[in-house]
C-alpha cells in the first residue's frame, strides 16, 4: 500500500511544516533567505554548520561561506539531491560536537577560530568521508550558481572578476525553477 503511506507522510509533513512556520511566525516556508526556518538541520546543527562554513571559506574582504548563504544551500540540498547524505551529516556533526566537548568542554560554535580549525583538522583526519563531503558541498554552495541558495548575490563570481550572466532575460525563469 505505498500510495496510502505516501499520503499519510505527506499530510504529516504538511502539518509539521505548518506548525514550524507558525511557530517561526512565517507565512510561507523556505523561500526567505535568512529566516529561522530550516528544512533539515536542527537549530543546533544549523549553528554548527554555519560555523564550519565560516572556517572552510573564511571572510576576507569578500564574505565567508557562512555569510554567502552556504548553510542555506546545504540545508536545501539535504532534502533534495543530497537526501542520501542526511545520515552522514547527522553523524559527522555529532562527531564535531563531541570532539569540541572532549577537548574544550564547549560546543563547536562557542570556540575561537583557531580552536575551531584545530577541531576541523581532527575531523578531517578521523571522519575523512564526512569532512571531504561537507568541504566539497561548501565549495559547491560558495562557488556554484546562486540559484541553489549559496553564493548569495554572486559574491564569489564578483570576487573572481566574472560578470554574472545577464543572458537574454531568462534569469527570473531560472531562479523560479531552482
Amino acid at each position, binding site marked *: 500500500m505505498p500510495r496510502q503511506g505516501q499520503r499519510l507522510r505527506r499530510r504529516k509533513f504538511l502539518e509539521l511544516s505548518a506548525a514550524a512556520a507558525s511557530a517561526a511566525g512565517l507565512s510561507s516556508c523556505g523561500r526567505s533567505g535568512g529566516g529561522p526556518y530550516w528544512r533539515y538541520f536542527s537549530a543546533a546543527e544549523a549553528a554548527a554548520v554555519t560555523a564550519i562554513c565560516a572556517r572552510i571559506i*573564511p571572510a576576507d574582504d569578500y564574505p565567508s561561506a557562512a555569510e554567502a548563504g552556504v548553510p542555506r544551500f546545504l540545508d536545501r540540498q539535504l532534502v533534495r539531491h543530497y537526501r542520501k547524505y542526511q545520515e552522514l551529516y547527522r553523524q559527522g556533526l555529532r562527531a564535531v560536537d563531541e570532539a569540541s566537548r572532549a577537548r574544550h568542554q564547549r560546543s563547536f560554535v562557542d570556540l575561537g577560530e583557531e580552536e575551531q580549525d584545530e577541531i*576541523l583538522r581532527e575531523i578531517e583526519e578521523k571522519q575523512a568521508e564526512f569532512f571531504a563531503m561537507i568541504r*566539497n558541498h561548501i565549495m559547491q554552495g560558495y*562557488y556554484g*550558481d546562486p540559484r*541553489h541558495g549559496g553564493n548569495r548575490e554572486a559574491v*564569489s563570481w564578483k*570576487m573572481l*572578476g*566574472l560578470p554574472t550572466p545577464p543572458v537574454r532575460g531568462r534569469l527570473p525563469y531560472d531562479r523560479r525553477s531552482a
Partner: protein
Amino acid sequence: MALKHVNAVVIGSGAGGGVVAKELATAGFSVVLLERGRWHTPAECRKDDLRNQRTSVLGNGFGPEDDRNPRVVVDSQGRERVVLASEGGYQNNAACVGGGTFCYGAMAWRFAEKDFRMRSTYGAIEGSTLEDWPITYQDLEPYYEKAEWEMGVSGDDSGNPFKAPRKKPLPMPPMPPNREFEILYPAAKRLGLHPFHIPMLRNTVPYNGRGPCMRCRWCVGFACEVDSRNGTHNTVIPKALATGNCELRTRAMVREILVDERGRARGVVYYDENDRRQEQTADLVVVSCSAIESARLLLNSKSKLFPNGLGNRYDWVGRNLQGHTYTGAVGLFDFDTYDDLGPGAQIAICDYNHGNPGLAGGAMLANEFIRLPYQFIQQVPPFVPSWGLAHKQWVRRAYRRTIAVQGPTQEIPVFDARVQVDPKVKDYWGIPVARLSGGRHEHTIEIGRFMAAKAEEWLKEAGAIRTWRRNPARGLSAGQHQAGTCRMGNDPKTSVVDRFCRVHDVDNVYVIDGSVHVTNGGFNPVLTILAIAYYASDHLVREWKGRKGRV
C-alpha cells in the same frame, strides 16, 4: 494494438543512430528511431554549473535520471556497489535526442592513419588485445568529409603536418584566437612544435541555417543556447524527420532484440513513455546506444539460439571497454590568461600522437575548455591547502591566471575491462543493468605520464611561473568517450561485428556507434563515430535496398 512493421528500427539517437536514421530515411527506408531520453531545446540551457552533463553534483543535465538507471561498478579489489547515473564511476553519456552530441565540447578530430593500424605499428603488447582495424583511414576518408560538411565543422588544421591526408578543407573558418591561444602558440613554435586551430562541430559563421557561436562561458556539458554547436539533434535528425519516412519516439527504453527461430532479428521490445510494453517489428535492427548500453542490450537479448546474448558466441560482447586517459598539466602565470571567451579550447598539437620513443601511441594535446569557478576548484594543486583562508586566497589569485593543457591518451585495450549484465540489480523497467569491471593497461598509464610531462614543458615555455601535472587515473575508463565493446573485425572468434558493422552471427542486426572501435585514437572520438555511421549506412542502403521487395 500492434505497431506498424517498418524497414529499420534504430536504437539511440546520438552520433551513430542519428546519422543512420537520416541516411536510411533519405534512401526511402521506413525508420523508427527510438531514444530513451527526451528532446531538449536550446531554451533549456539552464547554465547551471552544478547540474549539467560535465558537473553533475546536483544531477545530470540531460539524463539518464538517477532514480531509474543504476549500474553496478566493481572496483579493483572486487568490491561492488550500485552507482546512480550522476555519480562518479557511472561512466555516463547523455541520454537525450542527440545523445552526447547535444551537450559535448564538439572537438571534431579525424583519427590518424596509424590509429587504425596500432598492432602493425607497435606489435603485440602483453596483457592487451591490441589489434588493427579491418578498415583503414582511406576507407573512412570520404565519410569524414561528409560528416564535416553535412554537420558543419570549423577550424584550420593546415598547420598540422601530422594529420591524415584530406581531400577537402573544413567548411568553416576557425574561431578568432583567445588569449590562451595567443600565449601558447608562440611557445609551441619556439619548442619546434606545430600548433593549429582545433576543428570543432561548431558554427563560426552562419551554416545550415543557424548562427555562429556567441562565445559564452557555458559550453561543454550544457545545451548551446544559440544552437550554434552541431549535433545530430539539430542536423541529421531534423533531416530524417523531414523525409516523412522516419518517426522519432522519445522516452522509449528498449528491453531486448527479438530473434526468430532461424536466428534472425524480427524487431525489439521497448517500454514507451507511459511504461507500456511495445513490440516494434522491423527488417533491420540498428543498435546505437553507445559502448556500455549497446553491449548491455546485446547481452540482454538472450534466446534459444543465443543463450549468452546476441553476437556473443565467443564471449567478446562487452569486452575491451575503453575511453581516454586524460592527463596534462596546469600552469600558473604572473599575468591574466583568462579572457572570458568560450569555448576556450582553441589550440592543439599532434606532435605526440605517434612516434614517441618506447611508447605505443600518444595523444593530441590541447588547451582546456573555459572553466567555471566550481570546475576550477577541482584543479587546485596539491601544494595548496584544501580549505581555509589560504585556499580561498589562492583561488582568488589563480582563477584568471592559469592555463590547463591536456590530452586524451589512446588506451591500450584490455580484455577484462568489460560490460556484463548484473545477475541481481535491475533498472526501473526491470531490465538487468550494466555491470562494469576492470581497469587500465599499465602501458596506458606510462603514455599518460609522458603526455603530462609534454604538456608541462609547453606551459613552462609559455612562461608559467609554477606548474603541476595531472597524472593518469588507474580505474576503469569509459565516460563520454566510451568505445570498444563490440569490436569490428574479420574473424568472428575475436570480434563482434564485421567490417560493415554487421553482427557476425546475425544477418540483420548492426551495431553502429563507438562500440565497434578496435582502438579509440588519441583524439576525441565523435567525428570517427559519425564517419563510421555514414560509411556503414552507405553499405546498409546498398545491401538492403530492393531486397525482398520490402525496402
